């Protein structure tokens, strides 16, 4: 009887090993993900305070001048002119909007005859010269330039490793 159960034990063991490998991958990324989440939260807080300060129409010389202290090393600020500044945040991992459920769902739904809606609407350019932290980011430094008086400017993301 043990022999007839052996093949099932082997198959379940393979799935168990696969689960273990996924566990290791996830655990290895856990600390980096936590660090990136801290960076993102800090960048959001700083952006809010910075936007409050630049409401006066000038960019601060430094973050401390805007009353922002305890800035993590993964965030940098550089004043370019009196009205423009450069803000960067460094992430250890790239973010993703990948969804496994949507992939499987799209294939099966296409089989049923329901077309999956595509979200290809272009992003409208921001009309406000505010610093906005994008949750989608690359690995490494992600920077954007803010021009306080250029209302038509977009907020490009630069990636410098």
């Amino acid at each position, binding site marked *: 009887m043990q022999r007839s159960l052996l093949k099932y034990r082997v198959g379940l063991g393979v799935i168990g090993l696969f689960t273990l490998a996924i*566990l290791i991958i996830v655990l290895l990324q856990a600390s980096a993900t936590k660090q990136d989440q801290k960076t993102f939260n800090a960048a959001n807080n700083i952006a809010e305070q910075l936007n409050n300060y630049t409401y006066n129409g000038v960019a601060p010389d430094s973050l401390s001048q805007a009353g922002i202290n305890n800035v993590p090393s993964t965030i940098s600020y550089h004043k370019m002119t009196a009205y423009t500044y450069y803000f960067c945040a460094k992430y250890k991992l790239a973010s993703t909007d*990948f969804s*496994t459920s949507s992939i499987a769902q799209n*294939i099966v739904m296409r*089989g049923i005859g329901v077309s999956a809606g595509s979200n290809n609407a272009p992003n409208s350019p921001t009309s406000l010269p505010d610093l906005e932290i994008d949750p989608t980011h690359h690995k490494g430094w992600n920077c954007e330039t803010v021009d306080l008086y250029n209302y038509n400017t977009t907020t490009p993301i630069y990636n410098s490793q």
Partner: protein
Amino acid sequence: MDNESSSDYQEPENRPSHFTPPEEADTGFSPAPPPPHHHPHEHHHDEHHEFHPHPSSPPAPPTPFLEPLPTHTAPSHDFAQAPPPPPAPAPPPANVIPQPVVRVLSPRGVEYVFMAIALVTGAIGLVSALLAIVNGNHSFSVLYFPLALLLVAVPVFSGLFLRLKQAELLDPSARLDASKRRTTQFLQISSFFICFFTLIGFLATVFAKVSGTYTGSLVKVVLDVLVILLVAGGILYYYWNDEHKAN
């Protein structure tokens, strides 16, 4: 004359046509129908043997349907045409307490339902993790939920599956357990549905790619379809074989 005919024989309107009054059934003799003293306008009613009182006479109260008494043993002409009554159920023994019949799973059937839940959950986790890997995306945010599914579902499924498989090897009649078959047939139908529409979806994607309306990578779609077919098709293949072996 109409009043006379109505007093001779009155058949209630809600009585079935095959019914014979008890006094007639007792004798086994049906009296001759009353003579045709009818108004010319009621001629068509005679053909159907229906009673229609005279408009001037008061309407007769409806008579409730009377079941034949159980003592009526002599068959009449009408009863001979009716289907035989069902046999009376035998009285239960004095020591047997009647119990209401409730549809429940067998004890093994409950375990099969648990196993099916773990199997479906684990299959979703496995497919999600494999899809993430074949699409080159193995970041924490993508893998943590499939991992949680696998970490719970795989041990639970393994334990239940091996336990039930062992029980089936010891007692082959357990393979024909109705509760088990209901669960495994649900799994077969579900996995067949997924495989079936995945294949259709794959062909639809290929056609969309040929026509240029789909701009994604066809290789990734092939890999995605293979992953889904591997897991759902594996479940279908196993339980299909298992059920047909049992039969």
